[in-house]
């Protein structure tokens, strides 16, 4: 399967501050009653964006200045909690193409990579610098350059970290492993034939 090579993401950004933003916050469970992911974007961050009557709580992603943002900036342990792929899917369906945070929960990180949505990490101070720049100029173009491993915005150039296997998978167009896994069928069956518990 030919996949796009994702060597950079460019777009406007929005800062959603907070540590430990969990998957229940990203997409509350009650919106997961769906057999496809298509409609999830509308409910992204629902409970922190709207009151129970649907009134806006002025969440950054509803701020008119950040409309059209495709890069989300946040803090530590972003995406912790459940393994629900609904979380990165809700971000993607809402229009986000990448997340920049201080750190990520593991399953969220993996789920995002597999969707072709890079998650890159900057230190605390670099996040604040970037957030400040974006807040000063919401139209600022932010680029995540996966080749040179830096986030660039205006005069800023911030080296990021990212698990190398995930970065390489994105830039080489191998972020969805299904093709490679299918190609391993022969070897898989050979291993299965030797696995003791399949033959007790």
């Amino acid at each position, binding site marked *: 399967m030919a996949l796009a090579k994702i060597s950079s993401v460019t777009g406007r950004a929005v800062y959603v501050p*907070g540590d*430990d933003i*969990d998957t*229940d*916050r990203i997409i*509350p*469970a*009650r919106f*997961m*009653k*769906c*057999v*496809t992911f298509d409609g999830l974007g509308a409910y992204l961050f629902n*409970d*922190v964006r709207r009151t*129970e009557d649907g009134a806006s709580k002025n969440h950054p992603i509803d701020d008119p200045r950040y409309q059209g943002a495709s890069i989300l900036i946040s*803090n*530590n*342990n972003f995406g*912790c*909690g*459940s*393994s*629900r*792929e*609904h979380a990165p*899917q809700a971000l993607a369906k809402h229009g986000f193409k990448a997340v920049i945070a201080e750190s990520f*929960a*593991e*399953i969220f990180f*993996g*789920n995002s990579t*597999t*969707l072709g949505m890079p998650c890159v990490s900057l230190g*605390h101070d670099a996040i604040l610098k970037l957030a400040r720049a974006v807040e000063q100029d919401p139209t600022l173009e932010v680029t995540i350059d996966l080749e040179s491993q830096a986030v660039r915005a205006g005069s800023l150039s911030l080296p990021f970290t990212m*698990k*190398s*296997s995930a970065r*390489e*998978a994105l830039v*080489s167009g*191998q*972020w*969805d*492993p*299904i093709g*490679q*896994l*299918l190609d*391993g*069928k022969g*070897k*898989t069956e050979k*291993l*299965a034939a030797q*696995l*003791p*518990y*399949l033959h*007790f």
Partner: protein
Amino acid sequence: MGKNLFQKVWDAHSVQVLPNGQTQVFIGLHLIHEVTSPQAFGMMRDLGLKVAHPERTFATVDHIVPTDTRLRPYRDSLAEGMIVALEQACKEFGIRFYDVSSGHQGIVHVIGPELGLTQPGMTIACGDSHTSTHGAFGAIAFGIGTTQVRDVLATQTLSLGPLKVRKIEVSGKLAPGVYAKDVILDVIRRLGVNGGTGYAYEYAGDAIAALGMEERMTLCNMSIEGGARVGYVNPDDTTFAYLKGREHAPKGEAWDKAVAYWRSLASDPDAAYDDVVKIDAAEIAPTVTWGINPGQAISVKERVPRAEDAASEAERASIKEALDYMQLEAGAPIEGVPVNVAFIGSCTNGRLSDFREVANFLRGKKVASGVRALAVPGSMSVARAAEAEGLDAVFREAGFEWRQPGCSMCLAMNPDKLIGRELCASSSNRNFKGRQGSPTGRTVLMSPVMVAAAAVSGRIADAREVFGISRSS
């Protein structure tokens, strides 16, 4: 240098190193449920793929089934639609479905072990983060996303990177009234909610060896809350005794072969670890959460932290956010905080031993007036066994509602929900904002016996005092 169980199981299941640099790992058991799988079957259809090993995938329904009635179609048409989608997919792809009519429906992490599907030395995957539960048997079990559910369906393998292994050694004896739930809350409190990132947790030491299988499951279940994708306990005689005679467990001669194999998988005495943490069991007290993540926990005798005392700016902000949300007073005792709802259930603490232990103390007691109390068995088998012992009557007489099996108020995708700012004493595993169905609802995590103490007291209380559990015995 010997190997630990994680390394042995990983090696036995490694198919090859993939061009993407990760390892293709064979998955011995795949469990699916109605919330994270229908989309994966959709992807299979889109790509024109077949299920490689339908005999190694098992399905059930747990997250959205109502617990008050089993009449179909369910009142919630979206819930009904998801269940129909799973039914159709199981039929279409030839997958065994433990639905309500099978008599074995239940929370996926409860039924895997009780059917004997979960066995030592397996790799197990499920589109659910609490798959770590199955590590209690010495399996390497992890939660996966929906696209990975597709990968397992299509190839019976996953593309994974290896994990480091941290041994958490709990030595000594747990005090009376202290349970596996308290151990894991204590571990998460010490190591943090992301302390386990990149690690598998191996729970060891005599305090762990002394735990029954169901308590081991509680422990491994919440590894994910500590950031560790995998948690496990080495298999031993307790493990084998639990599995013997279960539906999918090996029988006869095969059983002896299996036990010998399972024994050989336990970590070698001279195994290497990437990290070792030692905990004295005697120091662990009944533990409750006060905040909005499972690491924000204290012993029931402690006071709620104050933002001023935080070590860093970030911690100060997170204490403040948590206290605002929980509406708790900084520096005040957690004991005595009024509760509105008591919930005993979930894949963490919804097993027979949980209901038995609570029933021991609940006999002759009454739920405080104004408290809504729910007991939700983790599976139909748990419900049957509990009812055969008359436990349901104990709960009902005390004023609990005794419900049908499911995830229920753990994540409130079914009609069981908190209302408004209600505070729930809960035996589940997550106290995130809005987790129990109300965007402003509040969750305090604790052991089932502590939930019962809260239910009868109407406030957060020390179960040892409420139920006269002697500290010295």
